[in-house]
């Protein structure tokens, strides 16, 4: 949940800020990458990420919640059917802000805000897998100890069976 913003609103009033952010979010989901001022990009990030979290939930109530912000049904459809599956594995951090220097004219610091649609890096994926494994292992520890005694007996038999197969292969070659 984003923290309420302190200080003045974007555009002069709360309603104007809501409109600006809703339009920015719509453009972001439509084009996947937009150029705007740093201040707007920073305000947009928590809103956009919350909308994507709703999209990942994917049910009708979530869709209605998103529609209260993003008015375009086309864009919401794209969000739920294309963007949500692309970030299904990602645990937050769905957007990336990169600063691109000041704008000519008013020297406002500009930034590119884009959706992070590329798959998780191998490192992130392994960390996630390890976390899942430890989570799984924790409650099953007691059960596993009991299983180990049973597991050992078939393990002894396995190499013997392999040797037999290997012998058979050698015999075939000869």
């Amino acid at each position, binding site marked *: 949940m984003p923290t309420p913003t302190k200080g003045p609103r974007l555009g002069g009033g709360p309603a104007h800020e809501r409109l600006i952010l809703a339009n920015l979010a719509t453009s972001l989901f439509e084009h996947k990458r937009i150029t705007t001022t740093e201040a707007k990009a920073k305000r947009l990030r928590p809103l956009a990420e919350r909308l994507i979290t709703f999209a990942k939930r994917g049910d009708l109530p979530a869709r209605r919640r998103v529609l209260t912000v993003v008015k375009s049904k086309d864009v919401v459809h794209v969000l739920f059917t294309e963007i949500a599956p692309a970030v299904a594995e990602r645990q937050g951090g769905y957007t990336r802000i990169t*600063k691109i*220097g000041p704008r000519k004219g008013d020297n406002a610091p500009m930034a590119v805000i884009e959706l992070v649609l590329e798959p998780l890096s191998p490192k992130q994926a392994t960390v996630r897998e390890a976390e899942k494994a430890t989570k799984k292992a924790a409650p099953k520890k007691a059960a596993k100890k009991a299983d180990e005694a049973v597991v050992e007996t078939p393990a002894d038999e396995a190499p013997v069976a392999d040797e037999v197969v290997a012998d058979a292969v050698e015999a075939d070659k000869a």
Partner: protein
Amino acid sequence: MAVPKRKMSRSNTRARRSQWKATATALTTCTQCKGNTRPHIACPTCGNYNGRQYAEAVRTEHAG
């Protein structure tokens, strides 16, 4: 409303303004094109930032 009682001398004005100083912009070297870039901002020469390309960052008026 408070108003100045006396004209401020040229000397005092200049003494005050002598403290107005500009600071040099922090610069780093772009890893791709070796040009000067500001830290945490995409390169204005080639648009590179952390291995990703940002065409929006490229400035035509920017030389070297």
